[in-house]
């Protein structure tokens, strides 16, 4: 297997305002070398779209911003370790990593 073949193409679905901020339409494709973890995906996302830095994870702590949630394969990954491997379907690009703004207020 070539070195390039080991890199996963991970799909990330961003909330509306972050898609606008990054000037993209639809899902984002980011390349992630295994293991495909939440941290690795977000690192790749922010490297490709630096305007998103600080909007998903806090600048100082790297922690998820309070009103955002992460979902993958119909499971809530918001409280999972950022170093846990995401589901195979996400790593294979079959399912997206969903970043969702919490529905709050009226």
């Amino acid at each position, binding site marked *: 297997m070539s070195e390039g073949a080991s890199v996963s193409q991970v799909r990330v679905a961003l909330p509306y*305002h972050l898609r606008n901020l990054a000037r993209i339409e639809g899902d984002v494709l980011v390349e992630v070398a295994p293991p495909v973890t939440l941290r690795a995906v977000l690192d790749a996302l922010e490297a490709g779209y630096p305007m998103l830095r600080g909007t998903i994870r806090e600048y100082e702590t790297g922690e998820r911003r309070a009103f955002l949630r992460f979902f993958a394969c119909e499971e809530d990954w918001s409280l999972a370790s950022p170093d846990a491997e995401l589901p195979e379907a996400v790593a294979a690009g079959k399912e997206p990593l969903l970043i969702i703004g919490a529905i709050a207020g009226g």
Partner: protein
Amino acid sequence: MSSVRVLVGTRKGAFVLTSDGKRKDWQVSGPFFAGWEIYHMKGSEADPERIYVSQTSGWFGQLIQRSDDGGKTWRQPGLPNEAIPPPGPPQALPNRFAYDTAAKPLTTHQWYDGTQHPWEFKRVWHIEPSLTDPDTVYAGVEDAALFRSSDGGENWQEISGLRGHGTGPQWQPGAGGMGLHTIILDATNPQRIYIAISAAGAFRTDDGGVTWKPINKGLVSNFMPNPTAEVGHCVHHVAMHRARPDVLFMQKHWDVMRSDDAGENWREVSGNLPTDFGFAIDVHAHEPETLYVVPIKSDSEHFPLDGKLRVYRSRTGGEEWEPLAKGLPEKDCYVNVLRDAMAVDRLDECGIYFGTTGGQVYASADSGDSWTPIVRDLPAVLSVEGQTLN
């Protein structure tokens, strides 16, 4: 011919209103950054095409945007607008407001229940570009601190002497948070800066921000255990005429105040105002003794008295006030005018502008004698700034 540009920050985006010097016909552009809270936007004195914006969201945090063409296009300073940036880590961190933890002890501040609480960055309330350098800009933030960028907003550093001077444990959030909302630069003395915080009070530096002095002598705040304490006052806004940098006017929570000695001493000038609660205050561009406030009924009822929206003007530096009502709602008006939502232009006949939480932006092209709405149905207006263009 001169023209004006009015920068309007709202709960759901930014708007740029432009007109020629007659200020009768207006063009409205926006919303920019639709759906985001725009706490403040302000243009540079040194380069009016340079405009800085505080764009914020409870979900996504704080962003800084910048325009170099008078609001036609925008970008986060130092970052590409398109994907696929140059390789390597970004050299600019335009949205990073990190408190200086390396400086001398910066303590904690007082929480609502009287306990001590660590500083936590929430948002930028006010942006104040340098008077001489388009790339130098100050930001007042919540929790209260002052930041400066000297590279056009690409990177920000805290001016930590403000939080570090010792009274931090007595600062406390007002109802809207503990924001540093007022930054006034002195054109005659680059080393002097005034700032104000809710609810800590007003402060001044005379050495470019290294050391700071509380300037609250004469303020009386009956909600405080010691109503005349050195700090803890809920200052809503401060205004200065650039030709007289030692004369300050303040809208405190209650009371309109005046200082003639750079904030060393204050005296009340509420005079015949029907209520001296309010948020906004500003000074006429050409008449240093002419000032404007919008009286609000009380701290419990944030709307005009009797449903009648009135600007009050004093031509005597306070004490004697006259209501200005021509063109403003005569009844059933229950909006608020927030602290940064009033501004003036510098045309020969000074223009006055203010925005309301009901989404109206009113303009007067005759120093306040009469008013007309430029727009009526924007989102709630958080800030208004005027630019006079040649």
